[in-house]
């Protein structure tokens, strides 16, 4: 007898669906489950969930080409644009209000279109890293 596994708490509805597929194809249930497991393992990378930080950056990128937002301060959190203001202080205030209501791990407050400044760390770099 080949080695098997006992798995608790399988979803009954999902198991029934798999069993129906196996019956329809005329193959054992384990074969369909093996196929499903292999398929999931192969797709794992492409199924990876977007992080909050990635979602916020994606929203920021989408604002760049829009003239309505150029030079404006924006607050972005949980993958949504939550405020467009004229000052950093107002954008921060709106973000603060949002954080009081929602659980937030990452947020963006930035002026749309502002480019990165050059940074050099020559004095302390060796100790710092």
């Amino acid at each position: 007898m080949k080695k098997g596994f006992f798995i608790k708490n399988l979803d009954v509805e999902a198991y029934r669906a798999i069993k129906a597929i196996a019956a329809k194809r005329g193959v054992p249930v384990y074969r369909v489950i093996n196929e499903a497991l292999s398929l999931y393992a192969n797709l794992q990378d492409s199924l990876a969930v977007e992080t909050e930080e990635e979602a916020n950056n994606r929203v920021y990128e989408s604002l760049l080409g829009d003239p309505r937002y150029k030079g404006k301060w924006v607050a972005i959190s949980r993958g949504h644009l939550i405020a467009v203001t004229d000052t950093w202080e107002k954008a921060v205030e709106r973000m603060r209000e949002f954080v009081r209501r929602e659980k937030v791990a990452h947020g963006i407050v930035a002026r749309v279109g502002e480019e990165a400044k050059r940074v050099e760390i020559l004095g302390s770099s060796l100790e710092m890293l």
Partner: protein
Amino acid sequence: MKSSAARWKCYRYSDYYRVLAQVYSPLNNTWHKAEFLVDTGFRGDIFLEKRFYEDLGLQIVELPLRAVPVARTLAGSVQLRAAITKVRIAGFTLKVKAYTPLYGYGKNLVGREVLNRLTMLLVKREKTCIRLPES
């Protein structure tokens, strides 16, 4: 008659030239004290220990990745995170970009972009003095 003598705030030297400053937490609307090394080799505003950066909640008001530079260091390039905040130093309140490394611990540094906005006097191996604003 009003005196025109300059007033200075001084900080004791201890292995490095140091200053005390307060950094603003935009998330909590509070100020937090920290000691900074004066780093003339750092071309930027302020650099923070990663833990301090996160305690201030700066990851909630962060700049987007495309607006954050990669720092050039003697040890190679370092990917940074950055957020805008404010720093209080010797009576001055300055809006600054606060950086921390994406990986690693970081260190509290005050860089040239802030130093250039202050009048600073380094007394050799004794103290760091900053000229106070005229009231």
